């Protein structure tokens, strides 16, 4: 198997009803698909719709299979492969705790400034930074914080939207 592995960001509109997330997750675990990230929240309360954004990877045939399998779940209204539909924005929010003092503490603040991360909690020997960005940017920031006393990370996973006027 020398097929190229592709990374796709897929948005799924689903009925906001009990069990719908379990159906999606069960599908991925039951059929052995990857989930790199998954986010879910209600987006249209009037229509009781939730949007699931998921990032998955696999060979082309598997990606197509994932979309077809998602689409045949009964509470799924729409499956959109943003990677295929065109330019889109991906963002993630992360909370990052750095514990330390002295030069390392000052350095973490300088880097946070470069990455436009905000300090949302501060004590004499710790910071909690909040930052948003592409997963790559979040990864880079975390890597830089590692030698400066990084102790804990909490990330939301990817949310995504098509650029321009187009909607899914």
């Amino acid at each position: 198997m020398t097929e190229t592995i592709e990374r796709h960001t897929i948005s799924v509109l689903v009925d906001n009803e009990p069990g719908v997330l379990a159906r999606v997750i069960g599908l991925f675990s039951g059929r052995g698909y990857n989930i790199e990230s998954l986010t879910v929240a209600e987006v249209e309360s009037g229509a009781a719709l939730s949007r699931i954004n998921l990032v998955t990877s696999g060979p082309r045939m598997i990606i197509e299979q994932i979309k077809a399998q998602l689409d045949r779940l009964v509470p799924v209204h729409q499956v959109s492969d943003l990677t295929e539909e065109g330019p889109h924005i991906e963002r993630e929010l992360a909370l990052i705790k750095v514990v330390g003092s002295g030069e390392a503490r000052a350095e973490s603040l300088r880097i946070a400034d470069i990455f436009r991360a905000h300090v949302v909690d501060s004590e004499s020997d710790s910071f909690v930074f909040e930052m948003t960005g592409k997963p790559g940017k979040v990864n880079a920031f975390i890597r830089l914080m590692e030698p400066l006393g990084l102790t804990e990370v909490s990330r939301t996973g990817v949310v995504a939207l098509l650029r321009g006027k187009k909607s899914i």
Partner: protein
Amino acid sequence: MATSADNSGENINGSEMIVRCLAELGVEVIFGYPGGAVLPIYDAIFKQNKIRHILVRHEQGALHAAEGYARSTGRVGVVLVTSGPGATNSVTGLADALMDSIPLVCLTGQVPTHMIGNDAFQEADTVGITRPCTKHNYLVKTVEDLPRIIHEAFYIASAGRPGPVVIDLPKDVVMAEGDYQEGTYTSETGHRSYRPRTEPDNAAVDAAMELIVNAERPIFYSGGGIINSGPAASEALTRFVRETGYPITNTLMGLGTYPASDAQFLGMLGMHGTYEANMAMAECDVMIALGARFDDRVTGRLSDFSKGSKKIQVDIDPSSVNKNVPVDISIIGDVGTVIDAMLAKLPNKSGGKSAALEDWWRQIEAWRGRDCLRFKQHGDIIKPQYALQRLYELTKERDVYFTTEVGQHQMWAAQFLKFEEPNRWMTSGGLGTMGYGFPAAMGVQVAHPESLVINVAGEASLMMNIQELSSMMQHRLPVKTIILNNEYMGMVRQWQELFHGGRYSESYMDSLPDFVKLAESFGANGIKISKPEEVDDAIRTMIETPGPFIADVLIDKTENVYPMIPGGAAHYEMKLGPDHGELEEKAEDGMVLV
């Protein structure tokens, strides 16, 4: 659902609502087993006479019976079981129906809503357990939702690719009173997000027809989807195949979609399919897959599956396309509708077959000339193939339905029984559920009380749901069972012989019952035979004796099913077996592949 005063419905409880909804949906029969959580529903059933209830002896039997009912009629099979063990016993049948795309609605009892999650008596997380083995499932939270959910469930079970739907019913919900208005929901109500595509893309049909018309070595490959589409799809397929003059093969689930007696029919394909069907699939230049899903039992080793062909696949389920085998043209839609669209675009016949097609048929006839199903009935021991050949000959003029269990006998039945029309053949294809055939035959008999219903069984499979003989006696269902008894789990033994050095680990059936006495103990009849000359009389006796009957046919214990694509081999690497002078090679090492 709020209703204004002038058109308000009746105030009835949830259980009565269920029964009324089922009657509205045209349900005539429910297969079930009572228990604490469903007592209110059983009370509602007791008080009416529109819907018949068939009491089974184990919930798995109810599911398979409903499958047999559904598969032989094209209607939704309905099951009612209690919470906890009632629901968990149903799981195998649900998984079976999901794999074989059988429309079922299974009502399960549940503990009252306020007790859910408290490990209450006979509580199980039914929606959690059944989520991966149903097409969809519901937990009903309020009595107001009940009529909508029941109607939706029937729509989902039967629309698109059919499948099982579970409705989990907490006891307080089925006891609560609510407003019920008949006719609020109809079959057109549908579902707000589930709307499977049935009409094909015209351009794809045109592209497919271009390939089909210009094919030199074509083959039709039709499966269970044709049966789910309805009898009209089989008729359209038959016309299409005859007008093109092309060969056709069927999957195990697709037997009966094309008349087996026709010269263009090459028999079943796959692991134990015919040599000519598999070779034609391997060598074709255009493959037309209609309602078939390229199962691993069909393809053999994937990397060598029909490498030189252009493939067209018609399926109502987009996830069935490009799953195992990449195809050149996929058409999503109802297969019957698609065949009609194709037929409309088929050019008028222009004077007989092309030279290329003549050559193709010559090649196919050469493969057919190998006579791959040949066997020798000699001596005093009954060959299973002979018993089935006689069973076919002695029943072919009758209005007959066949079910099977799973194993060697199932494959022999698929090879030697011939089906001229759909819905006559009920077998567990995808899941391969031993114990399917006996209860399934019961369901078929309920749907077709005047017809002859025969379950072809192995003794090991039959032992798995033999308790349903009691249900057959109670409901006067004269199901006939013919056991091809080799005192082994035959298919397990065959694989142990061929792939595990002949080490017959736990595949021998010791301490088998006397099946005749067993039948008699239930009040039924039976006969046991061991000689070839007794076969015809035994079959006649079985057919003519009123009521359920078990014919225990002792067969050659070491007979193997051939032809065979060994696990992991390519579909053109068939073994024809000892009746064709091939040695039965015994490999020492177990095959990793299944």
